[in-house]
């Protein structure tokens, strides 16, 4: 359903065989296409498969509470990976996500504790996020270095600020609704689903629409696919980077706010695992680290897979180190099957 939009089906689909003209060797091409398309659909297949597997291995898995818990886990990862997907499609990468999560967690818990009004806190966080994202993008353009470097530097700066700010502070406060927004028994108004899941669902729809239906979205793909050609095609490279890195920082900040609700106390290191987790979700979904191919719907699948796999492994009794090992193997196994295109030579 997702890859069938009439125009923008550039969701990393490996090259189908040309149907006009005379294909070089028909049988070989047909098998290649089937194989390529199969691996291309793997993330969409893995989500239900893992779910069914978990049903067998974990008693009581098919309950509302356990499914909601799973979705909360996926939402935290999915939200923080939203902007990451875009920066990677644009040919960059955002390493400052964990730091921004941490800083935003500190800001909410500290300022709310000091009785600032919530709208002001959220506005301040949003402004800060846009500032961080803009600096990430603009410095990368001006200094002619990959955003890997600028966002890594930014990550150190932001972490430093967060640590300094929270220095010694162990007390903080968050509003009650924020706590229940990430609780499995939380409600969103009359809907018996915690807020974070609804936020994630809405953000996902917006992100997919943004990438497919807006000018900046299409320019993001073009920039990531070929930066030189993008410039010559008058793509607004700097603007695209500013937008996607700002979105990335905004998503990280939002994740940080939800984390604050989760624990209620200030913790500048709360985002730490998301250094690799966001990239894992993006890669498992099938968005190429080389840029220009993939999409957020794939990352949604990636986040669900990570959450399901983690839950499954915990349920079966494996420890945290084994979970990382399993995720690592999954990343390598899946990404090696993605993008099995015609060989480079065949494109000459």
């Amino acid at each position: 359903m997702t890859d069938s939009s009439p125009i923008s089906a550039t969701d990393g689909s490996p090259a189908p065989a040309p149907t006009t003209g005379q294909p070089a060797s028909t049988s070989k091409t047909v098998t290649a296409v089937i194989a390529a398309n199969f691996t291309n659909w793997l993330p969409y297949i893995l989500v239900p498969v893992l779910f069914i597997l978990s049903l067998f291995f974990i008693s009581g898995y098919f309950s509302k509470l356990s499914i909601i818990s799973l979705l909360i886990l996926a939402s935290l990862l999915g939200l923080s990976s939203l902007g990451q997907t875009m920066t990677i499609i644009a040919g960059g990468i955002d390493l400052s996500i964990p730091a921004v999560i941490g800083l935003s967690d500190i800001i909410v818990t500290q300022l709310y504790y000091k009785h600032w009004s919530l709208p002001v806190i959220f506005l301040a966080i949003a402004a800060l996020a846009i500032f961080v994202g803009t600096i990430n993008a603009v410095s990368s353009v001006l200094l002619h270095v990959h955003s890997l470097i600028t966002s890594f530097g930014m990550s150190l700066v932001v972490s430093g600020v967060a640590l300094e700010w929270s220095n010694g502070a162990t007390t903080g406060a968050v509003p009650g609704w924020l706590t229940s927004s990430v609780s499995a028994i939380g409600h969103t108004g009359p809907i018996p689903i915690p807020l974070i899941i609804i936020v994630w669902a809405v953000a996902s729809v917006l992100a997919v629409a943004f990438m497919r239906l807006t000018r900046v979205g299409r320019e993001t793909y073009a920039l990531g696919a070929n930066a030189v050609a993008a410039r010559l095609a008058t793509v607004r490279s700097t603007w695209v980077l500013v937008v996607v890195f700002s979105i990335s920082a905004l998503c990280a900040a939002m994740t940080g706010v939800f984390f604050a609700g989760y624990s209620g106390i200030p913790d500048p290191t709360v985002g730490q695992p998301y250094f690799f987790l966001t990239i894992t979700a993006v890669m498992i979904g099938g968005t190429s680290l080389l840029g220009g191919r993939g999409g957020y719907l794939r990352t949604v699948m990636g986040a669900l897979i990570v959450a399901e796999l983690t839950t499954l492994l915990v349920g079966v009794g494996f420890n945290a180190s084994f979970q990382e090992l399993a995720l690592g193997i999954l990343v390598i196994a899946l990404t090696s099957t993605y993008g099995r295109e015609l060989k480079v030579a065949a494109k000459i």
Partner: protein
Amino acid sequence: MSSADGATRLVIEGLSRSFGETRALTSATLRVRPGEIHSLAGENGSGKSTLIKILSGVLQPDSGTLTWEGDVTRLGNPSSAQGMGIATVFQETLIAPEMTVRDNIYLGTDRLFRYGRRKGEEVAGARQALSDLGLDGLDLDRPMWTLSLAERQLTTVARAIIRPWRLLILDEATSALDHHQRDRLFDYLRLSRSEGKSVLFTSHRMDEVLGLADRITVLRQGATVATMAGSEASRIGILGHMSGRAGVGDVVTAEPAPRRPGEREQGPSQRPVLRVEELTLRATSKPISMEVGAGQILGLAGLEGQGQVEFVECLSGLRRPAAGHVLALGGNGESRPVRSYRGANRLGIRYVPRDRRHEGLFGPLSVFDNFAVTLWTDLNRLGWLRRQQARKRFDDFAGSSRLVSASPRHPISTLSGGNQQKVLLGRWIAMRPRVLVVNDPLRGVDHNTKEELYGLFRRLAAGGVAIVFLSTEIVELLTLTDQIAVFHEGSLVAMLPTEMSSDTDVVAAMFGDQRAGDGEPGRDGEPGRDGQRGGDGEPGRDGQRGGGADG
């Protein structure tokens, strides 16, 4: 007739290779004997490079046989080809710029550890190879990037010949060399021939082919169409086989083009849309002034690196000239200077780059996305795409340009080179350009698509678009353009009216021969305007056609 004549080093029969829809080689046949210099001739896109890549183990053929010194062989990879004694110098000068000359020469010969050889041996070997090629004084410890283009090219030849070889393949390996360097290289090749070695080379310079080759094999559209002895070959004969047109010599040298019939006689009435004022490309070159009119196709010619590329870059705002201006002229006489690439685009000057893959295509994206990327500038409502309109423009373009594409949703990489080029052109044509600046757009495009693209350019011009068309193929310029501006050493040396020019005129001007332009650039003020559309080209042309068979 197969291998009865025992004295063949390499026999190729019925070799074919396709890339997706493009059939680069359909049936190539070739025999190379020991002690022979063999030339492989063919137009761009005739399959020469593909054949050479197969011979050097870079590509595998789809079908056909390859017999090396009596044994049917498969060359699975480049090192197996090298192991058998086939050394190749590729068209692209493949170097590691940060490494030294010596390391570049020995690139790829290391085994597990680098220092399998003693340094002394390495130095002696490299010196020998370089001095064979006339580069005796070259410092082996210099980083590669400090070398001139010609020196780099010779170093890649040296890299090939330090390995034991019995067949040396040179793919356009002389393009950057001057006459003296070229002669040294040819001396070396002749010497090797006398030692019983074989050489297979391609060159765009007909005099090299005729002067050096013992035998010549001509490829056309992926198939071998003729093999002849060098002593019996003539320029006209080879060109005839290459293009497949009987008596092509007459067509090319005498009547340049099957021109647009009856369309606008080149009157001075064409409204100028682009004006170049005292443009200086390099500190040492002469200023250029000219105008390009709506509906005019101006060709740009020159040997590699003579300023024509800088010129198109100045026109499109990618490069600031050393001095002078490029002005876009509006309908009501106003003129606006081109200051930046974006600025040029706003003025309707659209640039189609030369390197399709690196500067034009978005490899992972679909055909439609590749086409529409520029359209979104206009076709959006508050940033949201107006896809129906874009789709309509795509369908219009695909129809009118006869784009061969299974589906606009398929990746652009599934298209043949020619169809990819159509999409890149379409990207700008759909933006309704006033001036289209194209940098060698028909490179690597197959014959039929080339004809279609000629048609496309002509229709555009008929619709009032001014086209500046840089090409490395003189035949293309003679076929398509109204005038040909020839560059030499950074200056415009001739402005030839195409109808009254032969390829000899163009070549002569490319080598800086002033006769061709009839003293054109010497005239102050306005070379390239109405004046020389008239009689100026005429006298020079007749004089040259007499001796035009090339020497």
